[in-house]
């Protein structure tokens, strides 16, 4: 029996529910040498800002128990260079491309939305409202009014589907999610890394140059999973579940909690081939359970299980 892994949301057909999350996959080209990206449902490209950014000084990454903390700091060439040199190459990535943008002001969100809208290959735009790794930058998703403001600005600049990437560490994520949807978000990514730090007890100093960074990996999975579950319970909106998916079991948990698509971030850094193993595992599980369509298990935890 064949298993249908495809997912239809946002007017798009994803061949399977896996999305390479924004960041660890870069713009896909370097990763392509080590992973056949055409086998993955979608790739969310590295976040682009209005102006080029060098990112933070090193060290930018540290292992901690159950996860890693990074403070890359949105290193990217800026929207102009992205449009000029990267966008024309995107057709070589044979999967759905989701653009990712981060504004520092409402005006910047608007411009970034307009520029992304000009790129044919970009099928949806994710708003990175929740990166905790930029000094002095507002984490838009920690304030529901700011979330709304950013989404409205991008909504006015494009008709493409827009995905709001929310922060998992807020007081009430359902409240923020509702505001995001009311402001025009077509889908939600839940979530992002969580502000975290590590101190070297020999030097008595923070390990990361920026002092704090964002925690990802297995440690955050149960936290983000709960947020996905709660938002899926309260709202009818497609959700991309992201946070600590290291294997196929993790991916299935997100789907069962209500995520239509599942983002893979840290696991790609550990092993670029990891997404293929995850896909294989999902497929075998569904076959064993006698389930023909992946979409049938989305949100099953809300419907009394199997």
């Amino acid at each position: 029996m064949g298993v249908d892994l495809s997912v239809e949301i946002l007017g798009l057909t994803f061949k399977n529910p896996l999305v390479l999350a924004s960041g660890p996959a870069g713009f896909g080209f370097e990763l392509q040498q080590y992973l056949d990206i055409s086998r993955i449902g979608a790739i969310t490209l590295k976040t682009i800002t209005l102006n080029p950014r060098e990112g933070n000084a090193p060290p930018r990454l540290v292992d901690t128990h159950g996860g890693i903390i990074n403070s890359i700091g949105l290193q990217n060439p800026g929207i102009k260079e992205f449009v000029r040199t990267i966008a024309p190459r995107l057709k070589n990535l044979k999967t759905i491309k989701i653009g990712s943008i981060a504004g520092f002001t409402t005006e910047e969100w608007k411009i970034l939305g307009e520029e992304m809208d000009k790129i044919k290959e970009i099928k949806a735009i994710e708003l990175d409202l929740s990166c905790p790794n930029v000094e002095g930058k507002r984490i838009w998703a920690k304030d529901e009014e700011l979330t709304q403001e950013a989404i409205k600005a991008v909504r006015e600049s494009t008709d493409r589907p827009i995905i709001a990437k929310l922060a998992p560490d807020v007081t009430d994520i359902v409240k923020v999610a509702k505001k995001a949807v009311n402001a025009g978000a077509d889908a939600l990514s839940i979530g992002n890394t969580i502000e975290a730090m590590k101190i070297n007890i020999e030097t008595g100093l923070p390990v990361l140059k920026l002092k704090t960074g964002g925690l990802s990996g297995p440690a955050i999975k149960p936290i983000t999973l709960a947020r996905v579950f709660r938002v899926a319970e309260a709202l009818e909106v497609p959700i991309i579940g992201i946070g600590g998916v290291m294997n196929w079991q993790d991916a299935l948990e997100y789907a069962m909690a209500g995520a239509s698509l599942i983002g893979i971030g840290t696991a790609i850094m550990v092993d670029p081939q990891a997404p293929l193993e995850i896909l294989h595992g999902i497929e075998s599980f569904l076959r064993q359970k006698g389930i023909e369509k992946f979409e049938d298990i989305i949100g099953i935890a809300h419907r009394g299980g199997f």
Partner: protein
Amino acid sequence: MIEAELIEKKIAKDYGFFKFKLHKKLKSPDAGQFIMLKALDEPILAKPFSIYSYKNKNLTLFIKRVGRLTGKIFSSPIGETFYIRGPYGTPYIEKINKGRKYILIGGGSGIAPLNFFSELYPELVYKKLYGFREKYIRELFEEEEQSTLVIEEESGKTVVDIFREVYSEELGILACGPIPMLRNLPHDSYVSLESVMGCGIGTCKSCAVKTKEGIKMVCKDGPLFRKEEIQWEWI
């Protein structure tokens, strides 16, 4: 990832040689390249290690004990399985001027890629200088390597001091070791940088180094750079 079985180890305090039998061949590894090595569970990420030697699926690493993963490698029994992928990074030979002979200057575990270089390109090597602080390190090395060791505790001189005594301008310099050591070398040296890496393949942007041509990645653009192209104040 490729399974790598630990088949031999030789340890002296915080340094050691570790030989792994790989279950699959590495794709033409060259000197200066590194592999990403991972234990089954903790820590989460694989970490980069320069290749010290590679022959017939046997991979030798020269490792200093510094953190959780290296601690685990040191304490693992023979027969333990690790996982590796690679090789990654640009081979030294693709970056250096091949018309010169080189003094190889290593500090601590930085001697690893230099050793592999001297195995593969002996005709390009003028002299090897392997610097360490304490003399216990001698017990790890065979008789024929003893004269390459420069030990501060014995001579009161650092590897850079000895380098200055033997250097002449027609020679090239190829170095790998701690940042203070690299900083003390002449401007036209080739220096191999160490960095905290995430992916090892150029996508995650963890191992950034600022150069005169902008931000580069140690994993993909390096690990070898010309000393003069690096903005050292950023490191």
